């Protein structure tokens, strides 16, 4: 089978793992396995950052402790961490040349039996959400086409993750979005009502609303509702001074 045929097959396979009740972990595992195959690496891990920017291994081609340790270690130093913080791809990194830069990472990687490594970012809207990290037993020389392929695989993973987090939480997210949109309108309407009743500008009205909310430890949305339905008279907000 030619490389082109194999590539087409891999993309279909990745698409298949995405159909219907797809399992995102399954997708990420397949992605690791195929990137090892197509980019002639020997081990791969897919690392995602949580909200506190801690890197976690979501999938890898091996369960070997000494390899998994390489991913964990990179919360302190290594190409994954650098790739995550800069968003730049780091490929064909020869471990014999990084002793100064990442001493602990280098030692652990060589002990695990690898000579070179790559880190490719998973990007979404200018943000890095994770990294695909590959390890090779031999020195590796990825061509530009190989690097582009690696990036394409990462982009498919990114869409999979994006869909997973939106599909699984669709209703909650949709409700939050709808209520954020609605409370914004309520707030603007209340500014208008208060500004007309008190004879002040809408900006001044907003200042008074915020002050009232803070003083009474009330949500701004509730203050807005009170102003609109008259439960909070304008005089209550305008009096009291600064």
């Amino acid at each position, binding site marked *: 089978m030619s490389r082109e045929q194999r590539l087409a097959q891999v993309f279909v396979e990745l698409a298949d793992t995405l159909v219907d009740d797809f399992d995102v972990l399954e997708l990420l595992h397949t992605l690791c396995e195929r990137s090892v195959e197509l980019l002639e690496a020997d081990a791969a891990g897919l690392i995602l950052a949580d909200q506190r920017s801690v890197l976690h291994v979501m999938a890898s081609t091996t369960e070997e402790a000494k390899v998994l340790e390489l991913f964990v270690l990179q919360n302190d130093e290594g190409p994954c961490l650098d790739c995550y913080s800069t968003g730049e791809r780091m490929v064909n990194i020869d471990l014999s040349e990084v002793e100064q830069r990442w001493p602990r990472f280098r030692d652990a990687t060589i002990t695990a039996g690898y000579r070179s490594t790559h880190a490719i970012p998973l990007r979404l809207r200018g943000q890095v959400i994770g990294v695909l990290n590959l390890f090779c037993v031999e020195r590796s020389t990825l061509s530009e086409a190989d690097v582009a392929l690696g990036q394409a695989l990462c982009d498919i993973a990114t869409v999979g993750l994006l869909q997973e987090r*939106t599909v699984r*939480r*669709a209703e909650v997210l*949709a409700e939050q979005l*709808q209520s*954020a949109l609605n409370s914004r309108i309520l707030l*603007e309407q209340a500014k208008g009502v208060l500004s007309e009743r008190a004879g002040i500008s809408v900006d001044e009205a907003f200042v008074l609303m915020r002050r009232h909310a803070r003083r009474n430890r009330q949500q701004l949305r509730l203050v807005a509702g009170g102003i609109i339905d008259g439960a909070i008279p304008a005089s209550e907000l305008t009096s009291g001074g600064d």
Partner: protein
Amino acid sequence: MASLRVRQILLEVLAFDQPDPPGLEGDTVWRRLCTSATKAVPVSGAGVALMTPAGHGGTLAATDGPASVMENLQHTLGEGPCLNAFRDQRPVLEHDLARAAVRWPGFVPAATEAGIAAVFAFPLQVGAIRLGVLDLYRDTPGPLDNLQLGEALDYAAAATTILLDLQHDASAGGLHPQLADAADSHRAIHQATGIVTVQASVDLNDALLLLRARAYAEDRSLLDLAQQVVARKVTFHPLHAEDDHE
């Protein structure tokens, strides 16, 4: 629901292969979505709008020309295909706009004049929760065939996914900056509604209707009139008072 095609659309409009523009302009992804939908369906142009119970909630992006007119008209008039798609929670397919003058007496003449001959509006929704609308238009009448309809629905699904994903990244109770920009563009309308509700002693719904009626009568955009109201250059009075001018 999450078809393969939706993922292809997401891959394309999120444009991972292009470097992110500096500062990543808020509406980049929405503009790409509109442009891509215009080519793929195909239609003459597209727009994506946020929707709220108070009506049109701000245009996220629209292709140049009539698509922007289509969005502006619908939010000024408070009528049009996107509002029906939103209220009825289903696509509105008006393949010959000229025949729909009875349904949308304000929208149809103005849209036709802008060169719009057919409008297809698709709600962006999750179950019963409605968030926005994808509007497509053509400069020639004629229905979408099945494939084109499927394509349009996939674009609506992709747009919904992007909306939800933005919310995923938003602060609690807040709006993602990309959505906030669109919502803020309509701020003055809601502020003016609040002002008019006091000036004319009517409820919020009627205040918005008064604003719309006056914008329509004076042939100006709702936003423009609303800004005048907020600046206190235009005043409304209780309905029984005949004179509503200064």
